[in-house]
């Protein structure tokens, strides 16, 4: 699993995950993902467009960081999950906890309203 990140001109943190977010994938990115998202108040856009598989341990990674951000007054949104990944997110109730968008501009707008 690969993690790429950049701070956008509008100040949002854009994290792109690439690969399988299963137990092994979650282990590979957990420390870096948590360090980026949970250490300070920030608004984070997590791009799932290139995540081909998601299991409950990947959900754990997302919810743990989203909770930590929420505690600091920040917000996480998810962007562009593939259909089967979206089904996992929706079935497990994640989409009602972490806003999920399929349009980059809409996702950015939702984060900027909160900043």
């Amino acid at each position: 699993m690969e993690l790429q990140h950049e701070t956008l001109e509008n100040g949002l943190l854009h994290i792109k995950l690439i690969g399988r977010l299963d137990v092994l994938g979650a282990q590979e990115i957990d420390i870096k993902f948590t360090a980026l998202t949970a250490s300070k108040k920030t608004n984070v856009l997590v791009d799932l467009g290139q995540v081909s598989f998601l299991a409950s341990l990947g959900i754990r990674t997302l919810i743990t960081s989203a909770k930590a951000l929420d505690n600091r007054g920040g917000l996480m949104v998810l962007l562009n999950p593939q259909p089967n990944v979206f089904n996992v997110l929706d079935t497990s109730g994640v989409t009602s906890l972490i806003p999920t968008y399929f349009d980059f501009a809409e996702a950015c707008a939702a984060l900027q309203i909160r900043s």
Partner: protein
Amino acid sequence: MFFSNLEKAEKQTLAISNQSAELARVAEWLEQLSIEFQLNDDIVFKIDLVLNECLINIISYAYRDQAEHTITINFYPDADHVVLEVIDDGFHFNPFTREPLPPQLTLESATPDGRGILLIKSFTDNQEYLRLNNSNIMRVYIKK
């Protein structure tokens, strides 16, 4: 729940040890099955999800000792269904009688864990469990 007889059915079998690193071998096996039995991407995703959730539960929680144990996975290709069977010799545990997670409406009250069994049930069309000869046998059916 009725536990149907698959004794005479054609099957493919993989045996792994109770180590999370074995999941890489399971992924390779699934890729071979998907080619051999021409499984479409949605079916492969469901099998992948079920095996990930089930195996990590067994590896993490089923054993009270530090010994090596064998987990057996049987795959039964059928005209209408894919049937997956996972057999472990851990302590008696029927995943399908567990209480579901209560609804979680806010991040503050949400728990990061506990979604694996919900996913297994949601991404399969039928589930069976049997305790036999000190083993747990979990079987799920996925419509093609």
